[in-house]
């Protein structure tokens, strides 16, 4: 084979995961450096973790590269803190002090702040994705996101308001719409990703999940009612210490049970939705294929939860890597792509960090 010519004009893409080693040690080093720098190192710590996780993703055996820097995240955060969070905080404080927390004006002001932040959240999500894509490189070619963050934020905002008004029934449509906006704005080099999907097929499974969750809520309601009822019927029992403890445990158990059942149902829906979205995502003639399962998602969620609790949050990088691994190992790319004709687009990348997302504590994976 003549090694100087590009690979055959179309190549298949093999997505694999090579688990990073030394993440536990890295977690400890990062923790110590964060403590020693009053937390300011966290932006660089996060960047190093991302470099490890990106490098674990292999496309045809070659790693993705994360080219973001801690400085970018830090500057982005400072800007958001100085221009959005701190002024909003001072303004709220001023209004509360001058007009009193109970006054109509203060409540109106706080409601307005919440709405503004709900809108900003959409912008934050979009910009964080844009930042990460522009800092993701494979074989020297960068990703990018080229649409309007305002358009995304607006859709995110008004469909979000409709969630309670539609009792949740807008969720499949909303997710599809937002996914479509995001993916259709995504590029690798000078080639776009495309996403074409109708939300309708999602509704069958969503209806089952919705009814199941309604039943779980009803069950929790009945159990809580029972606990309260028992105490009303036998008021003298309430006096003892043991009785109180038992009551507290019963309430806790009810909530834990309800949450667990909800998590199972929700994972069952989310696995389906993710696979559906993957199946409708295309790049230069290649199709994505998802094989996520409810069982897999629950297993990852439960084990990650235990790792987080057991390590008091110290092993967050391990948790991030495990989530990424599950996702990468359950996404495949079918078909072929003319890699030699994919070149770097004209955009120059962006310079700012993902400040808003950072400030909202939103993160990758």
């Amino acid at each position, binding site marked *: 084979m003549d*090694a*100087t*010519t*590009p*690979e055959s004009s179309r190549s298949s893409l093999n997505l694999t995961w*090579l688990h990073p*080693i*030394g993440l536990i040690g*890295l977690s400890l*080093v990062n923790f110590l*450096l964060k403590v*020693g*720098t*009053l*937390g*300011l*190192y*966290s*932006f*660089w710590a996060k960047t*190093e973790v991302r*470099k*490890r996780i*990106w*490098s674990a993703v292999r496309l045809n*055996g*070659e*790693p993705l*590269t*994360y080219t973001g820097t*801690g400085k970018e995240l830090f500057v982005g*955060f400072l800007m*958001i*803190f100085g221009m959005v969070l*701190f002024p909003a*905080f001072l303004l*709220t*404080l001023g209004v*509360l*002090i*001058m007009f*009193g*927390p109970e006054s109509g004006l203060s409540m109106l002001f706080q409601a307005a702040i919440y709405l503004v932040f709900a809108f900003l959240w959409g912008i934050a999500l979009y910009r964080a994705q844009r930042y990460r894509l522009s800092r993701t*490189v494979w*074989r*020297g*070619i960068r990703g990018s996101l080229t649409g309007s963050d305002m358009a995304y934020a607006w859709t995110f905002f008004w469909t979000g308001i409709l969630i309670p008004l539609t009792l949740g029934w807008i969720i499949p449509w909303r997710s599809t719409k937002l996914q479509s906006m995001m993916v259709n704005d995504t590029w*690798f*080099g000078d080639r776009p990703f495309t996403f074409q999907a109708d939300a309708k097929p999602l509704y069958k499974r969503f209806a089952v999940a919705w009814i199941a969750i309604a039943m779980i809520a009803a069950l929790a309601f009945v159990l809580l009612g029972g606990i309260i009822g028992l105490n009303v019927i036998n008021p003298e029992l309430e006096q003892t210490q043991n009785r109180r403890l038992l009551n507290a445990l019963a309430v806790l158990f009810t909530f834990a049970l309800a949450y667990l059942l909800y998590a199972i149902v929700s994972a069952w829906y989310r696995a389906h939705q993710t696979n559906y979205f993957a199946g409708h995502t295309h790049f230069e003639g290649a199709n994505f294929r998802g094989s996520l399962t409810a069982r897999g998602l629950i297993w990852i969620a439960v084990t990650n939860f235990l790792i987080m609790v057991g390590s008091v949050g110290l092993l967050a990088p391990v948790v991030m890597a495990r989530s990424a691994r599950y996702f990468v190992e359950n996404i495949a790319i079918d078909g072929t*792509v003319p*890699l*030699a*004709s*994919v*070149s*770097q687009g004209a955009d120059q990348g962006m310079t700012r960090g993902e400040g808003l997302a*950072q*400030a*909202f*504590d939103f993160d990758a994976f």
Partner: protein
Amino acid sequence: MHSDPQTQLYFARFSDGKSAASFDAKVRLTDRGVAIELLDRHEPLIWPYGALSSAEPLNQKSIDALLTYKHQPGATLFVADAGFARKLAVAAPQMSASALRWRHATPFIWVAAGVAVISAVMWIANLSPSRAIAGLLPDKVRIALGKQTLESMTTGHPVCKASKGVAALDRLTAKLSKAAGGKTKFNVVVVDWNLVNAFATPGEQIVLTRGLIAKATSSDEIAGVLAHEMGHGIEMHPETNLVRVIGLTAALELMMGGAGGTIGNIGLLLAQLSYSREAEREADAIALALLKEATISPKGLDEFFDRVSEKGRAPEPDKPARDFSVFSSHPPTNERRKMIEAQPPYPATPALSAEDWDALRDVCNKPVAPDTKQREI
């Protein structure tokens, strides 16, 4: 042609950054840098070690290396060989994980050290930026702040308004205000509340509770407590505390990367109104000066705090009972007593006439016997 034919040959993938295609390559670690042999080139490309960057920091556990070169942007070299990566980590130490970490963390370690030094200096020199900022607040803001604090702390406890009692309290307030120079206008109220409590809020507002008055055995004791709270007000301790809490909250938020979520919780801010021992000592010193100027005996101050903190006291001598949380950070009683004893005695008159004292005890139109049930804040 090769600078050192002895060096080991590694297989690699090379991308020129012009497209997403990649090519087979052979690389060596030479003393000039990484030499990359491509089949369509006669001369190997040389990437000097000092201008290399790796996708992730290299160390002795690395299993591969993905390299970029400063002077050939976009081009990448991927060598899936642990031996290569580990040797490169030695040859180009700027790419090692620990070097990168130190480079990034060092400035902030200096920042942290600087913060520690500044804090130490401020503590030693007794500087308080919070107090300086508190002093800059306009009166209007301080009064508004005080009103909010007062409302949030006395919810459900109406102000007592029996006219004779209010008049008696006003006379006592006027007496002590005059002793303070008369420049500061204090607004003192009694609220209908069982709890034994007294506090100053921003804007020179002072709240005494019915429980506190019921607990006092003489008007001198009330005068002592009032003078103490006026001391807090004169020194702007409530304002200073609020500014400090706001500042610390913002700093904490900054450190946590915005994840603390404490910003915006004004209720929490207003609740954090306990004073440092230093502040209590200052308030005591002012109280003693005011009492002397108003020819009121300082014994009441001592006796009242002593009695109140003795009841239900925990075994630790410095830990007052939980019931009296507002008094919890007051200096130990013996410290206050020493301060009082150090003062030369002076002729004193009762703080209030017997008639006024009775009126004050009746200000809430309730029986004066203290309730046995104590509520907590």
